[in-house]
């Protein structure tokens, strides 16, 4: 708040150039952004080029051509659906596991909480390939290979530790008096959690949910290792198969890439507040 109040006064007192100088910084920032987001532009541009003419992709989509999207939807619609189901499933599972755990860690101060938190941090050091290696054999025995529940369970490994940290950080700041008041009124643990704690933690639940969605949606490793047939195929694997062979139809590959980027783009634009909360909350605390 102080910074917001400070700036106008400074600008009024200072020489007129301050304002112009500030806009010069904006221009510089736009320039940096343009460099950083060029690949994203190029993806969209290439997806709108007509098929076959890979040799001369024009710098701008002057005559947008949607055959790439037609092919992409034709070939990848099922895979996109699979990814969607897996991601939603992973959000549900991750929140169902992480929210109560975060509550216990933040509010009850149970013994062993330190051990659990340490385990969460250590879990971040375990390479995905190690997990995949062991899960493949276990899934093979359990018949979970090539199954949506199998991928939901595995993909949640990306989201659950993160969700616990984010929600716990939020719940740490929640006034204990509110919960105690509910308990005094005779609410049991489950009811206090369900009707007081969860509604109050709404924002952190949304942040955690959005990130677990993105993590599961982006998962490539488990899709690659825990499926062996075409039966269950997330879109990330679909893209990998496109680029695994020699590519002569980049417009459909890029169209699929655009479709696979939609969740990230939509969330960044529409839920920017929650995304910002997630990027700072999880890592530093």
């Amino acid at each position, binding site marked *: 708040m102080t910074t917001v109040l400070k*700036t106008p006064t400074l600008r009024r007192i200072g020489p007129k150039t301050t304002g112009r100088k*500030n806009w010069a*910084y904006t221009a*510089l*920032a*736009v320039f*940096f952004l343009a460099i*950083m*987001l*060029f*690949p*994203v532009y190029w*993806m969209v541009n*290439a997806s709108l080029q007509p098929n076959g003419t890979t*040799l001369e992709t024009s710098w701008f989509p002057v005559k947008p051509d949607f055959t790439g999207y037609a092919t992409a939807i034709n070939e990848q619609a099922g895979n996109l659906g699979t990814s969607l189901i897996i991601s939603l499933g992973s959000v549900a599972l991750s929140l169902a*596991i992480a929210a*109560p*755990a975060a509550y*216990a*860690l933040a509010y009850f101060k*149970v*013994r062993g909480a330190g051990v659990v938190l340490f*385990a969460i941090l250590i879990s971040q*050091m*375990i*390479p995905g*390939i*190690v*997990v995949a*290696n*062991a*899960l493949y*054999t*276990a899934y093979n025995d359990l018949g979970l290979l090539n199954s949506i529940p199998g991928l939901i*369970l595995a993909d*949640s*490994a990306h989201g*659950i*530790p993160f969700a616990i940290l984010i929600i716990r950080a939020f719940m740490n700041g929640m006034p204990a008096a509110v919960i105690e008041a509910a308990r005094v009124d005779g609410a049991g*643990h489950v009811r206090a959690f369900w009707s007081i704690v969860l509604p109050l933690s709404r924002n952190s639940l949304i942040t955690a949910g959005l990130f677990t969605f993105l993590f599961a949606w*982006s998962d*490539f490793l488990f899709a*690659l290792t825990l499926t062996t047939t075409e039966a269950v195929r997330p879109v*990330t694997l679909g*893209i*990998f198969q*496109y680029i695994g062979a020699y*590519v002569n139809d*980049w417009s459909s590959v*890029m169209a699929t890439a655009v479709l*696979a*980027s939609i969740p*990230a783009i939509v*969330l*960044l634009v529409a839920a920017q507040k929650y*995304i910002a909360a997630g*990027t*700072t909350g999880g*890592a*530093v605390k």
Partner: protein
Amino acid sequence: MTLATDIPQSEGHAAGKAARANGTGAEQPPPKRRRSRQRRERLFQWLFLVPAVVYMTLFFGYPVVKNVVMSFQEYTTSTFFTGEAPWVGFTNYVTVLSSSLFSTSLVNTVLFTLGSIIGQFVIGLALAIFFQRKFPLNGILRSLLLLPWLLPLIVSSAVWRWILDKDSGALNRFLGDLGIIETGVPWLTSTSLALIAVVGVNIWIGIPFNLTILYGGLQEIPDELYEAGSLDGATGWKSFRHITWPMLRPVVSVVLVLGVVYTLKVLDIILGLTNGGPANSTQTIATQSYNLSFHEFKFGEGAALGNVLVIISLVFAVLYLRASRRAVDE
């Protein structure tokens, strides 16, 4: 589960003893009832944590243990039909570590990690400092910079493969239009350039993370310090050297440790861009472990190599955290 039931019981005991030792306070409920109520309370509280503990055990604990076990067994293509994986002692480790590919992939892993971290950190810090200035649209522009980090890695790999394409990629065409190059540079298909290209792409992916965390750290440094510093003549580089950097140290540690740990295990980007090629020039320990398990079906050797990666990661984290703690103590 043992954890979940053991701990509340011992806590209940301790509390019960304490209640007894307190004597017979009139308001206190009889010790026995109180103890059982407290025990129930503790048990209830632990129930909230049980699903997470079970999940973490199954999907992190079990794989680590299972991987150690597997690394002492011989897996072949037929193992998954017959279920036979004989014990072979340290054979897998010997095979994996003495293979000529190991030194290649170890060197590549080190170069990939160092290159990525240095690039991401330096550019991320520069941008974070730049965004400390107050200018219009700062917040929106900064948050749009997050996009490369939020895109699925395999999408980024696909896009960059097309940009780095030798014949019609955007980068070569751009350099060609500027007259810098005459013929297409084989970014991803030359053994001497592929690793550099892969590092470049990984830097692009990591900048937003470094920027965001470092920006947060910079924001925490109180303005008064800079004001006091400027009175003492510390401005520009001097104020960065003597105020910003020391204050930012803890955040820098977090960023670097997380960065190294995450970069060591990168798989998606390399598989998507080069698949470890050409001629293993971008093969890292992680991709090599994947190849051994899922292409050659030598899960034992893949597990052994995966464990080597875990150990490297652990050793780094412990060494670094100890070093930085000592630095902070001084």
